[in-house]
């Protein structure tokens, strides 16, 4: 408008940009692996066993998006980045989406609705049971990911429920670890990554506990005994 208007302060403008761009970036990041899989499939770039390749890639991206979801808070605490935290819900939903697609691909393409084999897999084979359990743990988190559900449950309870994502990460790594025949490098890499992300949360967790302890006026002696 007029030249006399004071310039918008720099920091809020950057924050505004991050608010607008972060979801776009998350969408692009979330859909890129799927687009790559589709492009590779079309040009015959998935090797001699494309079904196995697609199944493995969908599993890989499930784990990767779980890791991205869990890195939002550490990134803020360590580097002060807030953008990942803004899109954490989307990243989590992409993790669930890749997990569901991975499972659907196993049922509908790899096993081609061979329900008898699938039933045996889901009841007798530990690595598949653990993989399926991962999906079952993620399901309520995906369902309650809306603002409406945060209100309905109340933030504290919602937060407690969504800590299940840590269990999902552990289960997903175990699924991968038990799947491979001999070379455990990749699943162990994910294990190390999740371990580091969990560890990065510990200082914050201790601070929060110290705060609540201080608030309730109890000493550590009262909490842990003499």
């Amino acid at each position, binding site marked *: 408008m007029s030249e006399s208007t004071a310039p918008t302060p720099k920091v809020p403008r950057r924050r505004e940009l991050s608010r607008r761009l972060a979801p776009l970036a998350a969408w692009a990041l979330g859909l890129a692996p799927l687009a790559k899989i589709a492009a590779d499939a*079309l*040009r*015959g*770039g998935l*090797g*001699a*066993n494309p*079904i*196995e390749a697609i199944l493995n890639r969908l599993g890989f991206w499930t784990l990767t998006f779980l890791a991205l979801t869990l890195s939002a808070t550490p990134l803020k605490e360590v580097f002060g980045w807030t953008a990942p935290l803004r899109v954490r819900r989307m990243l989590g939903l992409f993790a669930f989406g890749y997990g569901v697609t991975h499972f659907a691909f196993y049922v509908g*393409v790899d*096993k*081609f609705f*061979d329900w008898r*084999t699938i039933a*045996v*897999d889901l009841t007798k*084979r*530990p*690595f*598949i049971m653990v993989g399926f359990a991962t999906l079952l743990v993620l399901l309520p988190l995906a369902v309650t990911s809306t603002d409406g559900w945060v209100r309905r449950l109340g933030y504290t309870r919602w937060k407690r429920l969504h800590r299940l994502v840590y269990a999902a990460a552990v289960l997903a790594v175990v699924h991968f670890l*038990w*799947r491979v*025949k*001999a*070379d455990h*490098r990749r699943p162990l890499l994910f294990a190390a990554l999740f371990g580091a992300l969990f560890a990065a949360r510990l200082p914050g967790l201790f601070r929060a506990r110290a705060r609540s302890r201080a608030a309730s006026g109890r000493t550590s002696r009262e909490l842990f005994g003499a």
Partner: protein
Amino acid sequence: MSVWKTDQRESEVTPESLYLRRRDFLRLGAAGALAAAAPALARPAGPSGPALAASETRDLAGGEKPTPWDSVTTYNNFYEFGSSKEDPAQNAGSLVTRPWSIRVEGEVKKPQVLDLDGLLRSVPLEERIYRHRCVEAWSMVVPWLGFPLADLVRRLEPTSAAKYVEFETLLDPSRMPGVRRGVLDWPYREGLRMDEAVHPLAFVAVGLYGRALPNQNGAPLRLVVPWKYGFKGAKSIVRMRFTASMPQTTWARMAPNEYGFYANVNPAVDHPRWSQAKERRIGDFLRRDTLPFNGYASEVASLYTGMDPRTLY
């Protein structure tokens, strides 16, 4: 000659004249697929490498179309060159396959070091098209080139004390990036009972699709035992040892509940982590039923009479 019967009937077998033109047919099929697909589709590479002549061809895969060269040579389990399927094709180029010798030891009249070129001058090569079933529930149809293992075993003159023969794969950390990590207990070892080793279907392959065996497929010589899971087929063999007791084989040592010494293809005995009832032929969309002994039951089942098939995984 009943040993050459497969589970397929004679009428199902491709006439030889048609078989000899199979590559024209493949090329036609590939051309059609290319025309129909996106122009960006990569053209699959055809057979390459030094040509080898075969005195005869035996189709022991029921006339089924062989899996394309491209798939057979880029989808390999050869952990010495890496544990991903595409690793061996990428890493095995450094393998030096000439000169090549095989140490022959154990219960033999005369332990010796056998020169491969000398051996190849004295054995006629034949082509054999076999079904190949991996323990991971995928399969191929492979036109191997080589000679019966029985011919080699007889030449080496094992003593009457020899009940088993063990095969050992080359272990060369300077050329095999996969062995620098202890993924398996190197060197890779496999073995057969003597009656299995001299069975007419047990084969030593030195070629593929009329060409010298590519490194990633186990050059310069490998074992092919079509009624057993693929891991029995030791690659790049440098040692044969005849023994009185059952050899300790690599995968059976690594995970005895998952991989046994016999490793006969058996749809009724599941791998603990997946069903063996079906398999995906590379190139197919749907899985097909796995056949007992990979379809070679009429030839080999008698080797195991009186043994519990559940212990033969």
